């Protein structure tokens, strides 16, 4: 057993870190990027692709250069570190995973995504389905050889600027059935789109559509498997992202404790606060470890893989909240201002718990996959 990155991966990490850092330090904060028309910077997305950040998410079996748990972890930790708003999660992880797990996928489609020439979004959640995996009310209607979708998809990350949307829709069974739904590709231009920024400064959209043409990617048990793979890939990537954001919060807070003076000394000299920082540190190390375990078993059998991802997502949900809340508290008033960048990291940490299943959801999944 060892926990070190290979030389190659170290280089990947360093070059990505440099690129993201150079780009994002041009802005006051990531809202400046996400409040643009597209919600992210298209040119920069291209640059990310050029240095291989996207192909790092795809396995060599599909023309990529990575795709292992470790690769995804490295990339997403950096995304958390720099609060990257480009569509790594939507087009990168969610769409790619759902495509790879569909039948008969042409690698040319994946090439288009990894070369940044096409952007895909993934639409599964509906407005009141919360984190239920197979609660799908959007309808798929098969007519002759064609299929048409009617319904609404909610909180679709980058859904307003994607070229294509991959979404779930049901053609039979009740709303919760594991069977009777499929994954379909639809065209954004057919949808009625309401786009908005999320509270943590990312772009999402509500998509409404009625009897629009769709392309079937897979259905029934294939679709169920592809959906689970996709949701778990997302949960895993977000867990790694959370680690990057936690680390920044910790560093900012430590720095502040050393420089902010009250009662004639740095507030970091108060033991009460030192202990709080140690508690935060313990939780970050715990969360990191859980994410590493999930990365290490990303290619294992599904039960092991899902169990460890659920453990990680549960843990980052809990520790992310602790880190966000403690780092704000230990800063005092300054952390409550828009100007001071900490809140953006704190918000991301909290909102990660609202994506791909919260800590309660993954606690239950952990129990399920551990055969409790």
């Amino acid at each position, binding site marked *: 057993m060892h926990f070190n990155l290979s030389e190659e991966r170290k280089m990947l990490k360093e070059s990505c870190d440099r690129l993201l850092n150079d780009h994002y330090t041009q802005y006051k904060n990531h809202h400046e990027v996400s409040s643009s028309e597209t919600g992210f910077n298209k040119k920069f997305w291209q640059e990310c692709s050029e240095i291989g950040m996207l192909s790092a998410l795809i396995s060599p079996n599909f023309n990529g250069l990575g795709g292992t748990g470790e690769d995804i972890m490295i990339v997403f930790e950096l995304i958390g570190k720099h609060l990257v708003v480009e569509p790594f999660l939507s087009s990168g992880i969610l769409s790619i995973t759902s495509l790879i797990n569909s039948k008969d996928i042409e690698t040319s489609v994946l090439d288009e995504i990894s070369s940044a020439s096409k952007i895909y979004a993934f639409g599964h*959640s509906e*407005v*009141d389905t*919360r*984190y*239920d995996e197979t*609660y799908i009310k959007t309808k798929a209607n098969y007519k002759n050889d064609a299929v048409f979708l009617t319904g609404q998809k*909610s*909180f679709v990350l980058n859904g307003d600027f994607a070229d294509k949307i991959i979404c779930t829709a049901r053609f039979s069974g009740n*709303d*919760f059935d594991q069977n009777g739904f499929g994954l379909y590709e639809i065209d954004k231009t057919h949808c009625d789109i*309401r786009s*908005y*920024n*999320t*509270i*943590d400064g990312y772009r*999402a959209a*509500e998509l409404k559509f009625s009897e629009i043409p769709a392309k079937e990617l897979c259905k029934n048990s294939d679709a169920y498997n592809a959906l689970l793979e996709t949701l778990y890939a997302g949960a895993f990537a977000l867990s790694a992202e959370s680690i990057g954001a936690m680390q920044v919060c910790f560093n900012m807070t430590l720095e502040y404790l050393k420089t902010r*003076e*009250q*009662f*004639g000394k740095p*507030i970091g000299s*108060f033991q*009460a*606060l030192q202990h709080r920082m140690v508690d935060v540190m313990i939780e970050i190390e715990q969360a990191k470890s859980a994410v590493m375990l999930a990365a290490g078993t990303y290619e294992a059998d599904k039960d092991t893989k899902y169990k460890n991802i659920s453990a990680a997502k549960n843990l980052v949900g809990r520790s992310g*909240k602790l880190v966000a*809340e403690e780092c*704000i*508290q230990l800063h*005092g*008033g300054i*952390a*409550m*201002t*828009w*100007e001071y960048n900490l*809140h953006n990291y*704190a*918000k991301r940490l*909290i*909102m990660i*718990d*609202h*994506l791909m299943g*919260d800590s*309660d959801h993954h*606690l*239950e999944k952990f129990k399920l996959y551990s055969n409790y």
Partner: protein
Amino acid sequence: MDFNFTQNENDFRQEIKDWLSENLSQRISNKVKKFQRLDKNDYEEFMKALSAKGWLAVNWPKEHGGTGWSNTQKHIFEEEIVKAGAPRIVPFGLNMLGPVLMEFGNEEQKKYYLPRILNCDDWWAQGYSEPGSGSDLASLKTKAVDNGDHYIVNGQKTWTTLGQFANKIFCLVKTDSNCKPQNGISFLLIDIDSHGIEVRPIITLDGEHEVNEVWLKDVKVPKENLLGEENKGWTYAKYLLTHERTGIAGVPNSKSAINHLKVIANKTYKNGIPLIQDPLFSSQIAELEIDLKAMEIFNLRAISSAESGKAPVMESSLLKIKGSIIRQKTSDLLRKAIGPQALPYISEQFDEGWNQETIGPEYAGPLAKQYFIYRKISIYGGSNEIQKNIVAKSEFRM
């Protein structure tokens, strides 16, 4: 021990309810319930109505135009106005400056200022904190130099809540630097319209403007605006802490928030079952309710011991800490309950009259925002850490 309200108290509650249903405008309570931005008029409309009824100065004695209510009555009143969705009664003049004026102000000051607070002629802001002086307030640097019949004040105050609406600010200023910091502070009443004062907005993490910086440059403050004696300001500022602070735990707010949480948990489904029936989630609500009920009794105990004359300093600190935790935990569960519906942020939703379709149910819009901004509750008014220091120091004597 008796946990029941008397018939008189129940009648009193009904009287408050009836009055609110007639005098609190639907327009304002709607805004409050939707967490929409309130302007100066919204606050004043309600406060003026209370004032006309004689119910504005809840904590003041009758001789100064207060209600003279018992603590139980105050408690009932606070509960009902929160339930009704009233804007908060701006506390700076009424609950902070008022009692200090009554205790330490001279006759002219009392005669001039108290009625103006009561009639909402003045909007006061609290000018204590400075960029370099938060928890360590006594280290403040804003300086007032004696210049005959007036002081010349220079410095900067910060975090001034609702200072954008204020025409007056009470400030702690340094009048003597050659002594223990606490002994060189004075309490000045300052016109915000004075030459040399500039109020600049601070935008908080929720994107809103509620706090401000107040810059003072060569501001002339007449000597008659000194409250009490020069260099005794610290005593006056501390008087506030020992003065009754029945509302500090925010029991009514937490009660109404937990009710809201239960309503939402009933309307939200997890795997086809209402969230309120989910063992994991409902246990968290139940624990919160247990905590709150206990704190409510704790609060009443503190109030009643205050009535027998003992200043509840320690209790106030404990209640402030627990109150903030319960408030924050409730907002935490509220945003958690709605899952991904917490994601969208539509700023216009918080403007009066916004009538577009919401994303998800209408109640979802403000919940994440509320969660984040309520982090302030454990920071302002003496952070929870400082409250713990106060208790440990005053109680344990170790």
